[in-house]
């Protein structure tokens, strides 16, 4: 039976990362209410496992739980099998020419937001963890439970897709 001290320790160590947890959940679910549900469920799970947590990095630990909770929520909801791990250490398609830097710089915030929302979920996830939370490849690999090589290739592909999306919409806008 958890006692007062345990709850206090949990609150002190884990709750400061709720903001980060919410941002990840919000980008994964793309919806306020769903994100709150996922964070709440993840926090319950986190507290359940709190005793067994040997505690090096609370933030990564909580983010990994948020991510897992999201995927089980998704499965329940859509009855779809979990996305299979592509696992490939593939190269970005080099045949796509590099977009114009200037067009990229002219992209506005709304474009960026919808570009990111349109990405496949495993790409969105690495962008959020790397660009918004500033996590290292190693931390992202641990959270997403994939090898570092996969983190690298996902990031490269995600960024390429964002660049292409943004330069296209920014070119359309300037017509």
């Amino acid at each position, binding site marked *: *039976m*958890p*006692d*007062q001290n*345990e*709850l206090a320790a*949990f*609150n002190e160590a884990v*709750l400061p990362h*709720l*903001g980060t947890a*919410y*941002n990840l959940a*919000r*980008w994964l679910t793309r919806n*306020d209410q769903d*994100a*709150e549900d996922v*964070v*709440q469920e993840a*926090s*319950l799970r986190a*507290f*359940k496992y709190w005793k067994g947590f040997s505690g090096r990095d609370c933030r990564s630990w909580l983010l990994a739980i948020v991510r897992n909770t999201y995927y089980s929520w998704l499965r329940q909801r859509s009855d779809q099998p979990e996305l299979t791990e592509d*696992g*490939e*250490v593939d*190269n*970005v398609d*080099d045949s796509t020419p*590099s*977009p114009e*830097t200037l067009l*990229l*710089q002219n*992209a506005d*915030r709304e474009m*960026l*937001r919808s570009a*990111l929302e349109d990405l496949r979920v495993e790409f969105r996830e690495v*962008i959020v963890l*790397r*660009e*918004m939370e500033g996590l*290292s*490849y190693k931390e992202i*690999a641990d959270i997403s439970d*994939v*090898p*570092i*090589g996969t983190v*690298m290739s996902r*990031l*490269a592909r995600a*960024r390429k897709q*964002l*660049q292409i999306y*943004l330069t296209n919409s920014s070119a359309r806008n300037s017509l």
Partner: protein
Amino acid sequence: MTCKDTRNLLNAYVDGELDSAGSLSVENHVQQCASCLSGMENLRALASLIENGALRFNASRHLKRNVQAAIRAANPGAGSPLFGWRWASALASVVVIVALTWGVTTQWRRSSEETLLFNNIVSSHVRSMMANHITDVSSSDSHTVKPWFGGKLDYSPPAKDLTGQGFRLIGGRLDYLDNRPVAALVYQRSQHFINLFVWPVRTTEITQDGQLSRQGYNIIHWTQSGMTYWLISDLNPAELSECARLLKE
């Protein structure tokens, strides 16, 4: 370095995840290559767009309160007093679920540790190829390679030269696997590099010998004289098995 190599490393370079040798070769290349330079500028432009885009979502003020309330509700005794029989029965079902999942997770943990190790071995191999940092000590002489590990590890890995049999020892490197520093011995067969990771067996370790393939790499594992061996390469399974056989001899 070629454009293709550089493109593969650009993201890691911009993210500050390359070692100094890797960074240096990327910098040298982009000084002479406009196309890779613009690739790098695009990555930087995108990063600053995202940084300045205020894309983070902030949690509402009630989220923290709701989370705390949910935890207290699911764990009577951890907070508020006075819960009726409803909570007792809810708690009982939670206990049953926890008990059920406990069995599942302890069984699953072993295989997830294995998966993690496989993944880390593949990652180490891939990194050693990507960053042009395959050896810390380069020599085909086992009398140079073996002593180099002395003082760096608490065991002495075998460094067998198989040049005569078509697998040239090209050197050794310190790596980190299975939560400990390990020896990586590097062999070359025509254009293929082979990493051999060696460390002393832990009692809880995967002891079953075997062969598997991951992400296009072939991996052979065995234990011998208290050491665990992991051989990995993009070489075909038959030749890699031959290499393993010679190493075991």
